[in-house]
């Protein structure tokens, strides 16, 4: 567990509105990347847009929760952070928090996010429609979607 003295930055588990995992939601608070690197027993971290997600790569095995903050939906650095973590083998919960909106959900899912804690709750019907709208994808990413070129050539 995180040091009691560290500021608890993480969204409480109650704020998670959408989750696409079967495991139990980890009831742990995320700390800043700097704190995480200082605390050998920390299991949850919160990545801000300016953080370098690569700093986490040596510690993936002890991580159970990574929150990636989107202070503003137009700042797309979190998409690269998420994909990098997945490409390097992170399999724990990857939670998008902050200015998370309906029309960005699909891209976030594709980059490996599997939990969402938006600042403002999303209309669930709209969210479901947005996630289901496209049957296909043109490129592989961090999800299981099979790119069109693979469907074309088997």
């Amino acid at each position, binding site marked *: 567990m995180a040091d009691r003295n560290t500021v608890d930055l993480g969204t409480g588990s109650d704020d998670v509105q959408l989750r696409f995992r079967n495991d139990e939601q980890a009831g742990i608070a995320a700390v800043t990347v700097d704190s995480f690197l200082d605390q050998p027993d920390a299991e949850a971290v919160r990545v801000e847009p300016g953080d*370098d997600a690569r700093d986490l790569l040596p510690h993936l095995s002890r991580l159970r929760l990574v929150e990636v903050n989107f202070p503003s939906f*137009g700042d797309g650095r979190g*998409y*690269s952070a998420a994909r990098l973590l997945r490409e390097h083998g992170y399999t724990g919960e990857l939670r998008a928090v902050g200015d998370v909106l309906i*029309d960005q959900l699909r891209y976030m899912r594709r*980059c490996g996010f599997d939990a969402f804690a938006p600042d403002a709750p999303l209309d669930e019907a709209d969210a479901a429609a947005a996630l289901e709208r496209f049957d296909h994808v*043109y*490129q592989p990413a961090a999800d299981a979607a099979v790119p069109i*070129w693979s469907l074309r050539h088997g």
Partner: protein
Amino acid sequence: MYQYDQYDQAMVDARVEEFRDQCHRRLEGKLTEDQFKPLRLQNGLYLQLHAYMLRVAIPYGTLSGTQMHALADIADKYDRGYGHFTTRQNIQYNWIKLEDCGDILADLAKVEMHAIQTSGNCIRNISSDQYAGAAADEVVDPRPYAELLRQWSSFHPEFAHLPRKFKICVIASEKDRAAMRLHDIGINIVKNDEGTLGAAFYVGGGMGRTPMIAPLIREFVPLDQMVTFCEAALRVYNRYGRRDNKYKARIKILVHEMGADEYTRQVEEEFAHLLEQGVEPPTAELDRIRSFFQPPEFVAGLPAKADRSDPDFALWIDRNCSPHKVAGYVSAAISLKPVGGIPGDASAQQMHLMADLAKEYSFDECRVTHAQNIILPHVEIGRLYELWQKLDEADLGTANLDNIGDIIACPGLDYCSLANARSIPVSQKISERFAANGKGELLGELKLKISGCINACGHHHAGHIGILGVDRKGVENYQLLLGGSEAEDVSLAKITGPGFNEDGIVDAVETVADLYLERREDGERFLDTYRRLGMDPFKEALYG
């Protein structure tokens, strides 16, 4: 030409539904204007001075006759009977109603077209050489590679919220007809010493307020790793491109501030990692795409010369036709720059005619150029005269390709909310002046480019002569620039000195043109004379 299969069609159809739903949610108040803006932008919809503007993608500038007809129909049905062909080989409609947009996108989808990512901070339409597949000097047709990148970049989940817009250009010859090195990524398909094709990558070019020529960052990327290399180049940009200042957010600033060497090192590192991730489409996919770009059924043994007895026609051939890789054919340019016209504008009638002529004379294909003209890529030399007569009747037969009358101009203050000054009236005056005094033809190749503000949509940095509209104490004022080029001899133009008013800038252009006529040596273009003489004599002539 590329043709959609059921997957491509499903993607654009889903996009139309998505946009209708987004508009609906906006009207219901579920989306704020700030949240809606990037969504409409990524569907090509801008809010302009007077109305919405819709930008439709024309991938690598290639259109079929059917598609050109559809563009004309949209101009008639939803706009004021006009369209505006742009410097990025797209078309824009200036008088669009938001409530029509879903229907327009649906009409486009029926002819395998869309407005996806034509605006916004994402990867934009991929541009290319307008003579692709026809040019005598090309190594290979660059369009299959552009199509591969079109698909890869469409709805790319990681790169939908980049620091700023991102423009990619693919060419495949030493001659650069597409301003390749003024793109965020410029790719030149080259052949190495072993005769193998690969992609030379230039990254970090651009115009705007801080123009930069893209440095070469990799001489040869094997073609079956090209998408992966793009992905690496974009990822480094997405992670480190500046987001604190919109004016410093383009990749050119990152490459400049980080240094091309360090940027390259990071891209190479990311590239090595991504090669393990399996993001590259298989070569079978490239082969499939290539099969759509097979040469049409050219006829052998056609006449290599036209009857030049009509002098106006002879002039048009010399000015507007370019050599073709197959004997007996040329590529013919339809100038959208009639004397005194609005550069790049075409009426619905003209578009219908161009579509019909493409079908009759050019294997049903036409191209849009970055200089805002239309090309019929494959025309029999023996049929040029009848083609030209039909064009001429419709005010489409102007013989001025790359001449001073072939002006690139942005929409400027007539349409654009960011403008300092009008561009269109200045271009009209210059074109009229040089038609009236007969110097236009005498001057030969002279590329003149006008932007109504520092954003440089009219490529003024790359003009042999550039004009930049500025605001001087509330009055429209024009700076003159000399010595730019977007071609293989790429260079950035320099400001001559104090600006001019609207009539003064037209006189100033004539002054520098006259100096060239006086001082030119054998075979020199305006640009060559300027480079030989330097700025001083031009300054002297302008400011005494």
